[in-house]
């Protein structure tokens, strides 16, 4: 008899371990239980009278036991003679938003199956709770849906638009900067010189250790790799030419520029971006300050002055690195290295590197400030444009370097 009952109850849409069942004059009563490792706890009482199924939660219905409730209450095998499901909340112990999910699920199910749904046993508090949280009707997300193809091409279009708009804005920014710089030549007091030492210190002096170390290592690597090749031809002494020219012309300005872009370019973008987010830029504007003279020019000038000085120091470090690599791997002396370096290096090599570093400095600082002014919104935007300042700074430095290579070679320098 009990076994029979178990089978019949499993056909209701409710699923669980049955703790006890009894039949009394066409009344079927069971308990939906919660299986626990250590104990069983009842979650629901289920009563079926004719075609009316009453589900009475008798425990807690919260997001924390939601999975157990879900696993227990399977509504896919309900008897076809059920015409009404009643959810009786009179015995519920504790509840949260998941009760509303449960009500909403039962409602949806009943709508689908053409079964009536009734909520009973509520009090004022429960009714208030349900009224606030139970969705009145399903709202569609407020978005414009596009087909995949349209979205794909519009995305490409957006990217192209951003690239063009960025380029135009950068040109406009450079124009504004140039104009302000020219004005400032005649009225130097317009620039906020107070900030210049601070930025020069940060972008230049504080960058010395890391740039020197990196260019020294680059010199060492170049010297070592070059020495291996040159030794095969007995051209040991030309290590001085290789290291001297490559470091002063290319590697030192390029490496210094990349490091400065990573240190100072990003710092400028983050500083200015944060100022923009906290409306400091707006405050400056309303107070009648020019953003270029107040914020951009001190930074651009500081980096532009610092770059050639950094490159000169790094030239020395790189050559010393190459010299050490040569001494360690080749049959040369310090004096022979220096004598060959004296022959190989001329002013054009050194000054082309220094000149390039000035241009790189100008570019890095300008891009850093430009990206900072592009920040909109909050912290996420600051991060995005800080990254963009480094990426576009490094890209422009390398692009400009490539242009310089062709130009200087065409000019025979």
């Amino acid at each position, binding site marked *: 008899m009990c076994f029979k009952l178990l089978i019949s109850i499993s056909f209701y849409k409710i699923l669980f371990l049955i703790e006890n069942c009894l039949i009394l004059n066409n009344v079927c009563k069971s308990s939906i239980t919660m299986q626990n490792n250590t104990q069983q706890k009842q979650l629901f009482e289920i009563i079926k009278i004719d075609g009316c199924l009453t589900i009475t939660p008798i425990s807690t219905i919260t*997001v924390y036991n939601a999975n157990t409730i879900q696993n227990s209450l399977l509504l896919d095998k309900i008897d076809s003679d059920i015409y009404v499901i009643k959810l009786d909340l009179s015995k519920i112990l504790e509840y949260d*938003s998941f009760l509303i999910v449960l009500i909403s699920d039962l409602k949806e199910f009943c709508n689908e199956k053409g079964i009536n749904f009734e909520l009973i046993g509520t009090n004022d508090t429960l009714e208030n709770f349900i009224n606030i949280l139970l969705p009145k009707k399903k709202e569609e997300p407020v978005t414009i849906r596009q087909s995949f193809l349209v979205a794909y091409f519009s995305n490409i279009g957006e990217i192209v638009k951003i690239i063009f708009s960025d380029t135009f804005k950068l040109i406009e920014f450079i124009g504004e900067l140039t104009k302000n710089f020219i004005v400032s030549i005649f009225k130097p007091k317009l620039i906020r010189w107070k900030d210049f030492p601070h930025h020069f210190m940060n972008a230049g002096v504080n960058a010395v250790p890391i740039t020197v170390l990196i260019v020294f290592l680059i010199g060492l690597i170049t010297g070592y790799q070059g020495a291996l090749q040159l030794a095969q031809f007995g051209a040991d002494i030309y290590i001085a030419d290789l290291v001297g020219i490559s470091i002063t012309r290319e590697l030192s300005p390029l490496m210094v520029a990349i490091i400065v872009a990573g240190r100072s370019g990003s710092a400028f973008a983050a500083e200015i971006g944060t100022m923009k987010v906290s409306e400091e830029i707006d405050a400056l504007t309303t107070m009648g300050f020019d953003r270029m003279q107040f914020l951009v020019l001190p930074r651009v000038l500081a980096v532009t002055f610092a770059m050639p000085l950094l490159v000169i120091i790094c030239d020395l470090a790189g050559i010393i690195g190459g010299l050490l690599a040569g001494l360690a791997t080749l049959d040369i002396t310090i004096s022979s290295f220096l004598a060959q370096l004296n022959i190989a290096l001329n002013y054009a090599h050194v000054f082309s590197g220094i000149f390039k570093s000035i241009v790189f400095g100008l570019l890095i600082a300008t891009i850093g400030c430009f990206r900072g002014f592009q920040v909109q919104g909050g912290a996420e*935007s600051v991060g995005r444009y800080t990254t963009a300042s480094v990426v576009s700074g490094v890209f422009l430095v390398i692009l400009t370097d490539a242009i310089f290579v062709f130009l200087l070679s065409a000019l025979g320098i």
Partner: protein
Amino acid sequence: MKQDKIIEVQNLTVRYGDRTILENINFHINRGEIFVIVGGSGCGKSTLLRQLIGLELPTYGDIFFEGINFTSADKKTKNKILRRFGVLFQSSGLFASMTLAENIALLLEKYTELPEDKIEKIIEMKLAAVGLSGYQDFLPSEISGGMKKRAAFARSMALDPDVLFFDEPSSGLDPITSASLDELIVQINKGLGTTMVIVSHDLASILNIAHRIIMLDKSQKGIIATGTPDELRNSNDERVYKFFNRIAS
């Protein structure tokens, strides 16, 4: 409304170095009430709120949540208690890189094992409760300040907290948006029985929604008045009277 204490603050003192912000504060918050902490600028309202939500530890004193000492509780107990708190920060505190739905889902994903469809349902429900139906795919930067506050409100309600803390809920909002937020606070308090602890100096809002108020004073470094809005508006204490009747000192 039940009058049992949900939060009790005992002998709370907060010092930053030699500077004392709050000294020997004692008060309690009843379950289900809208409790407002007011006071002039720099009186320690926000400091007190930071203590209540466990962002800072007091120099002396204890804070009890349902009889459990929150201040000296171990990390596990503290986290359990914090799960029953919701906080609406002054600047909303929504994660800018996440959509409103993702912001709300965060807590549900971390603390429950709900399947995705149920989480979506709860998100829809919470957003609808704050009047933001359909905005789940919006980023915080794409909605207005008032909507941000509402979205942050929905996020703070994600786990149906017992206590909701608000830091200057009406700051930066126009009077109508501010009034509708007040209405929402009252509605949620009534409907869900959530205890609301609000730090504010927006008089119109305070007098409109508060059940009980404490007023802090900078010079006294503590509470100078406790009572209902009417009691405080008619207080005999000159400082309290001036504050609640907008009279310049």
